[in-house]
């Protein structure tokens, strides 16, 4: 499989190959996570690996970092075949990993965190002077700006990430794996990170950048490998590819444009949220004076970068999180005094953002999962008793109607794939005759076929008069399903958009505060002009390509929404 060697870009021959993966295959029970993966990463480049959630990127990186052993295939580092049985082996070979979730001790200083596990000195003495000198050296060499004596708990997310990077460099890594590094960052921090990556690259460090955010990948990578269903489908040059083409490679096949449909919105207001404020334990408002209404047959989409209050909004409506002030009304009934169970009984369905944590009993059979969340309702119970046959029959119905692929309803929920688990949850939540559905990332980590089915189910329910609050990080999903889109930023609703006219680019900039006059983000936009274009033409059919609406901190978005 020599064709995996850099085929396209003419610059290739001047670089050595830092990492070469050949024919990597990894099987898990019931799942082939990777099959026949071929990647060649050139030294001193940023090589992006993109793919949908669940495409097998993380497994591949775990293999490269020695956390998993491949069933087949070989890994070469700097031309030599290697076999890692633990991350320690990978570190010794010069490979370092920056995890998506930081692994830092809050109550230690940066220096202590960096040396933890690789303490300089000897005879039980910690040579902090040598360590400090090296940290400052590395920090200056790569422009990381890390101050060794600060407490980690005082650092922001971007600083913490730089500490993680420094920690890896301190251990002598020349190849960095960054697993979804931007997931936790706000846009300015993303730009800073990309600046750091360019510095690292200039110093000869090789970077493997895992992501599913195409615009970021296009702006930072020198080469992009696309993974679909566990296998590499293409390696492309970012200068010669568009985001749309990448997306097509990722999902396979042409992307249909979201259809335009007639509105099914009715007059009757189902959910009213008034001045809802939710405080974090430290007293910070994570949800700040949010007001919204959803009518029967309406899908209200909430667009926002993750961590801007979406989860809190859903959980506050569900009664899972205490509310500091404000009201939540279902119809004209105040929910304040109702617990989660009564809210469910009142007709709220809930598709949680993390189905393993909040949606399923993984070790329980499917029919018991059917009961979950509906413990007080027919056909699951008769008085204080569980109605086993009733629950089982209805589970069979859900499996049939929602096309849950399973050999039976007695298998544990953990045996199903993510998409089928999600279809089961949606079938369950729909069967309680809900008037309101809170759907948080309903198609996250779900294969494309299941995704289409889930969308159909949501559309059908909407046509029947269901009110839906839709949270999604997938802007096309939001635009395609929503009747109205509210943009959430730092716990506030900052703008409203009409999905018939808005483009993902407009939404994207509003989500990051660019549309509301946040200086740094706008500045970054201008800088972005240097890199190849990312916006696919005609994503929304009606779209401008987003040229005019974003730059320079204009407040164009709400106006667009008003038409």
């Amino acid at each position, binding site marked *: 499989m020599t064709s995996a060697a850099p085929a396209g870009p003419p610059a290739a021959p001047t670089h050595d190959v830092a990492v070469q993966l050949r024919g990597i295959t990894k099987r898990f029970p019931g*799942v082939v*996570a990777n099959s026949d993966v071929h990647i060649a990463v050139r030294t001193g480049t940023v090589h992006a690996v993109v793919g949908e959630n669940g495409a097998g990127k993380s497994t591949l990186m775990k293999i490269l970092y020695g956390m998993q052993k491949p069933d087949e295939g070989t890994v070469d580092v700097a031309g030599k075949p290697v076999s890692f049985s633990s991350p320690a082996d990978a570190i010794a070979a010069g490979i370092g990993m920056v995890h998506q979730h930081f692994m830092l001790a809050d109550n230690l200083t940066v220096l202590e965190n960096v040396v933890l596990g690789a303490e300089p000195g000897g005879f039980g003495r910690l040579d902090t002077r040598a360590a400090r000198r090296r940290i400052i050296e590395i920090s200056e060499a790569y422009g990381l700006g890390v101050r060794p004596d600060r407490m980690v708990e005082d650092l922001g997310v971007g600083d913490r990430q730089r500490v993680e990077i420094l920690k890896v460099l301190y251990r002598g890594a020349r190849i960095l794996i960054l697993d979804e590094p931007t997931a936790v960052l706000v846009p300015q921090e993303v730009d800073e990170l990309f600046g750091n990556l360019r510095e690292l690259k200039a110093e000869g460090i090789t970077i493997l950048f895992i992501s599913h955010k195409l615009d970021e990948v296009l702006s930072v990578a020198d080469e992009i490998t696309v993974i679909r269903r566990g296998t590499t*489908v293409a390696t492309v040059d970012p200068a010669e590819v568009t985001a749309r083409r990448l997306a097509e490679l990722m999902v396979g096949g042409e992307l249909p444009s979201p259809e335009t449909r007639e509105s099914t919105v009715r007059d009757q207001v189902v959910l009213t949220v008034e001045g809802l404020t939710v405080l974090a334990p430290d007293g910070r408002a994570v949800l700040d004076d949010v007001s919204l209404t959803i009518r029967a047959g309406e899908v209200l989409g909430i667009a926002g970068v993750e961590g801007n209050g979406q989860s809190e909004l859903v959980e506050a409506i569900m009664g899972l999180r205490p509310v500091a002030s404000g009201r939540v009304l279902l119809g004209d009934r105040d929910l304040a005094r109702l617990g*989660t169970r009564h809210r469910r009984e009142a007709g709220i369905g809930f598709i949680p953002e993390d189905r393993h944590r909040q949606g399923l009993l993984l070790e329980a059979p499917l029919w018991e999962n059917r*009961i979950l969340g509906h413990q007080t309702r027919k056909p699951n119970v008769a008085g204080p008793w569980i109605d086993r046959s009733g629950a089982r029959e209805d589970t069979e119905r859900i499996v049939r109607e929602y096309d849950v692929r399973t050999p*039976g309803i007695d298998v544990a929920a953990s*045996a199903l794939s993510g998409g089928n688990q999600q279809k089961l949850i949606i079938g369950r939540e729909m069967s309680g005759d809900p008037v309101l559905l809170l759907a948080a990332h309903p198609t996250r980590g779900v294969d494309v076929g299941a995704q289409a089915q889930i969308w159909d189910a949501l559309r059908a329910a909407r046509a029947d008069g269901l009110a839906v609050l839709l949270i999604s990080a997938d802007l096309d999903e939001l635009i395609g399903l929503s009747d109205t889109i509210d943009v959430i930023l730092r716990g506030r609703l900052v703008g409203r958009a009409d999905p018939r006219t808005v483009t993902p680019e407009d939404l994207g900039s509003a989500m990051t505060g660019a549309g509301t006059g946040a200086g740094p983000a706008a500045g970054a936009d201008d800088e972005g002009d240097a890199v190849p*274009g990312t*916006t696919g033409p005609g994503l929304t059919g009606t779209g401008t390509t987003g040229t005019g609406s974003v730059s320079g901190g204009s407040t164009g978005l709400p106006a667009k929404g008003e038409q």
Partner: protein
Amino acid sequence: MKRFDLQRIGLGLAAPLLALIVALLLSSLALMISGNSPIETFESMLDYGIDPDTMVQTVNRSVTYFLSALAVAIGFRMNLFNIGVDGQYRMAAFFAAVVGGWLVLPGPVLMVVVVLVAVAVGALWAGIAAILKATRGVSEVISTIMLNVIGAGIVAYLLDPSRLGTLIGSQQVSTEPMPESAHLPGIPFANGEVFGFILIAFACGLGYWILLGRTRFGFDLRATGLSETAAVASGVDVKKMVVRTMLLSGGVAGLVGMPLLLGESHAYASDFPAGYGFSGIAIALLGRNHPVGIAIGALLWSFLEQSSQILDLEGVPKEIVTIMQGVTVLSVVIAYELVRRFSLAQQQRRVGAELRAAAPVPAGVPGGPADRSTTGTGSDPDPAPGAGRHASGATATGGPANGRHAADPDNPSRDGGEDPA
């Protein structure tokens, strides 16, 4: 589905058998190290153990153990560790004995009252830990252990001739004995009688099974044990469940002293046995929180203890049985965990295989609008380069992979790939 069930039963039996064999081997090793013949030792234990008198003792003790383990298991099913069964049953038995010796009622009524008092006191004592956990977040492990000590202290304080105790004989202090009419008759067994309370214990086991498997309350309890976050999202009020489950566990713990009190001692004396609560923890583990498993575990535990009485006469240290018990619990726990993981993985593999065989769907599933260039940093308002460049930009690397992929039936499990657990 039948295949799953058969296999599950097979695995269910394999685990304890395997564990027992390992435990026997390890115990033999311990015996050999201490210079005794394992075979002779086991032989004499068995001989003594199946002696009718010993068997009566074994069954009697196992009734107590069964109740104790049941009390622990109720908590275990919800990930609540009620380490306080010991204190709960001693408090319960003491106050029940006091009431039994003090009230003047017809025998059967008095017995019912005594049992109810025991249940109430046990529940109340466990309830303290429950309230602390629900309101203040105090770990029930810590609080129940401390309540054990406090309970023992309270009983010791009150069991004094100047307070609730009376002097029996020259040294022994006891509560007022219960009237003869309130002695629970035994049930003939071997060539003796076993505690009549065995019927109540049996009913408790049945009740436990029904409550957990067939009722809404049981479902909520198990759901909370399997995933607290999912239970909360489903509408379970976990604080309430903590209180209810602890009360229930404590109530059953209150029964632990009853077989002995009603069937044999009829009073709470200073030599009323302690420590059954801790045996209950081990037996609940041994029986995997299932009533039948617990019953078997209780019999085994009690058999080992009773049959070891002979060892002192044989010159073998009796403590060897403690080793055997410990090794048994450890190997059972390990064996079950291994079997659990194995069968989960097996199930996933089978589901994957059956679906692959059943659904030869072409690979390219149509119809997902998904440009995933989402969560925009909005970094780039540049118009896209010409569409004509797409094709040249994409250099396919995986020719053979692609081809294989097309032939591959739609593996519905594949999107679980990043998180196979």
